[in-house]
């Protein structure tokens, strides 16, 4: 056996698909390559958006890029995603979303009609969420150097309350509320992209989340932390929060809703719905004594009508996520290394 330590088999000499997966590779790319170049206190908040205090007002600022293929899929499209994705990141700080920028990177040959359709969808989404699209940029790349259409949006929101919503506020005993069933977006996009046909339709959950969050805050509920579930899914979000907060989280598998079409497609392809992307779901950490009230408020909104309690922050200080299985055993949740790959049989 080779006992010497050889060179690593794979150094990250080139960007791989897994670097964009939201898993371990993404985490390392951000912490080891990107963040060191820009380190500052605002970046170190390590939240969905940065909270800034230029004057007396507290504003939050975030950005996101959208590279989905196909551009249109059941339940949504890139235009909606580009608005909701950024609006949702603002909402996770408890901010009222106000302004967006929009940068378009167009591939030569993209039909104008396709672009118009995506922009119309963006406009609708902006009106629905009450944000104004106030600045933008357009670039065109040669055919073959883009995937039709990429969109970047940056967003500014205003905090109208004094609550600090951040991972470090997660406290022992906090209950974890999940706003609905998981895995719809990732499976809908995958099914469309790969031409997989399932008996029941898979539709993305793509939706704006400011309304349920603001409903909680306006009712005076103390909200310790919020996180929208995007790439990497529920499991990755929980692991990231456990690590940022330095807390142990315990979740009940049976309490996490997964729709039958998503469950079926995941079983067939060997994917775990806990790691599949969402675009219209979030988790909220609230003190146990306000949880019943918070749940009722969320359930009263359309996008979070199926909210439920899925677990709690324990008194443990080891940053980890314990999942209690339906059959009474336990396992630890971890980040995935990269993309989930469909299995052979």
């Amino acid at each position, binding site marked *: 056996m*080779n006992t010497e330590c050889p060179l690593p088999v*794979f150094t990250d000499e080139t960007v791989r698909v897994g670097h964009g997966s939201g898993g371990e590779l993404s985490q390392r790319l951000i912490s080891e390559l990107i963040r060191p170049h820009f380190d500052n206190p605002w970046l170190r908040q390590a939240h969905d958006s940065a909270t800034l205090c230029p004057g007396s007002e507290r504003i939050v600022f975030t950005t996101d890029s959208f590279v989905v293929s196909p551009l249109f899929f059941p339940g949504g499209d890139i235009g909606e995603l580009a608005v909701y994705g950024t609006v949702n990141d603002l909402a996770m700080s408890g901010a009222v979303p106000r302004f967006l920028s929009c940068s378009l990177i167009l591939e030569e040959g993209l039909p104008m009609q396709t672009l118009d359709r995506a922009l119309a969808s963006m406009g609708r989404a902006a009106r629905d969420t009450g944000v104004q699209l106030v600045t933008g940029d357009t670039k065109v790349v040669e055919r073959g150097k883009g995937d039709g259409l990429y969109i970047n949006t940056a967003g500014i929101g205003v905090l109208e309350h004094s609550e600090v919503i951040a991972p470090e506020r997660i406290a022992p005993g906090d209950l974890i509320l999940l706003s609905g069933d998981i895995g719809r977006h990732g499976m809908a996009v995958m099914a469309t992209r790969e031409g997989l046909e399932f008996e029941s339709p898979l539709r993305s959950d793509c939706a704006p989340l400011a309304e349920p969050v603001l409903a909680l805050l306006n009712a005076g509920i103390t909200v310790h932390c919020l996180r929208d579930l995007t790439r990497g899914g529920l499991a990755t979000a929980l692991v990231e929060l456990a690590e940022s907060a330095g807390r142990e989280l315990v979740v009940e598998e049976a309490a996490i809703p997964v729709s039958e079409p998503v469950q079926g497609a995941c079983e067939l392809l*060997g994917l775990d719905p806990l790691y599949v992307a969402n675009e219209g779901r979030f988790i909220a950490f609230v003190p146990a004594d306000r949880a019943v009230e918070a749940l009722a408020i969320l359930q009263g909104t359309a996008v979070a009508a199926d909210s439920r309690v899925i677990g709690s922050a324990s008194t443990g200080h080891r940053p980890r996520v314990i999942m209690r299985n339906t059959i009474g055993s336990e*396992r630890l949740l971890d980040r995935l290394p990269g993309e989930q*790959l*469909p299995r052979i049989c």
Partner: protein
Amino acid sequence: MKYLDEYRNPQAISKIADEIARTASRPWTIMEVCGGQTHAIVKFGLEQLLPDDLELVHGPGCPVCVTSLAVIDRALDLAARPEVIFCSFGDMLRVPGSSRDLLSVKATGGDVRAVYSPLQAVKIAEDNPGREVVFFAIGFETTAPANAMAACLARRRGLRNFSLLVSHFLVPPAIEAICTAPDCRVQGFLAAGHVCAIMGYRQYLPLAERFRIPIVVTGFEPLDILEGILLCVRQLEQGHYGVENQYVRTVQEAGNARARQMVEEVFDVDNQDWRGVGAIPDSGLRLRPAYSQFDARLRFPNETTPPADDSGCISGEIMQGRRKPAECPYFAGRCRPEHPLGAPMVSTEGACAAYYRYRKAEIVDEH
């Protein structure tokens, strides 16, 4: 969800677990052959429900893990050729060859595509007549019919730009190799349900007889696996050694006749190299001469000598149930899913991947 919930029902599961505890009067060692079963065992924490001295050891049933380094390197060479569209099941993309994996080939310009079925690769060949489409036809008996079907279709449609890089494995010769090893600890087997859905289980009767060892054809859900264990323990306690079928909702004694015919038509039995284990006679499949025009090895001849597997990976020990992933000195250290030393760390059915995903934290604590 039907066919899932009833096989994950907590009451039914605890009933069977209790029955196993009542039945087992002494230590037993049982091997689950299939990596899919290994993952279910680790994911659902089934070992937590079993008596302490009932040991499950993980078998060789991960086709990605046992595919030899020489074949993977051949795949990497083919995938890097500019004229080739290389199609593979997703599992194979992160498996390390001598110096890189298929995803790295893709990142440096190779046209590597993950497909869900070999028939998709046939379609890609039809749609790209100017390119050479190679499908990485790996797997056990389970994937052989679909891979055979791809060759049949390609012949029927007169495709000249489609070929298969075949690396097929057969389960019964592997069970035989494990049983004949001098240090074999395995006292009973859970055979892989999906393999038997195709092949049936008559081939296992002489093995059970010869090695006086119970073999239970078993499914993949928690309740299936516990039932399989119970049937196996009952036989062991009674001194019986027969073949039993737990997975009756899917497996018939004679298997699936049409699927077997398809395999028979296209493939011939051949010797096969198992990564980390070595050569096992008559444990693989190769294309029959009538299908040789679809053999990627003949279409793209290659003179390079097979590489030495010196990564330090102990996959052979793992795949034969001699050691557990947690006993590997490199587990979660030098060997991790993003930098694997061997295939068991990255395959969906690999034992090391299951331990890393579901039990890494506790194992690292123990170390």
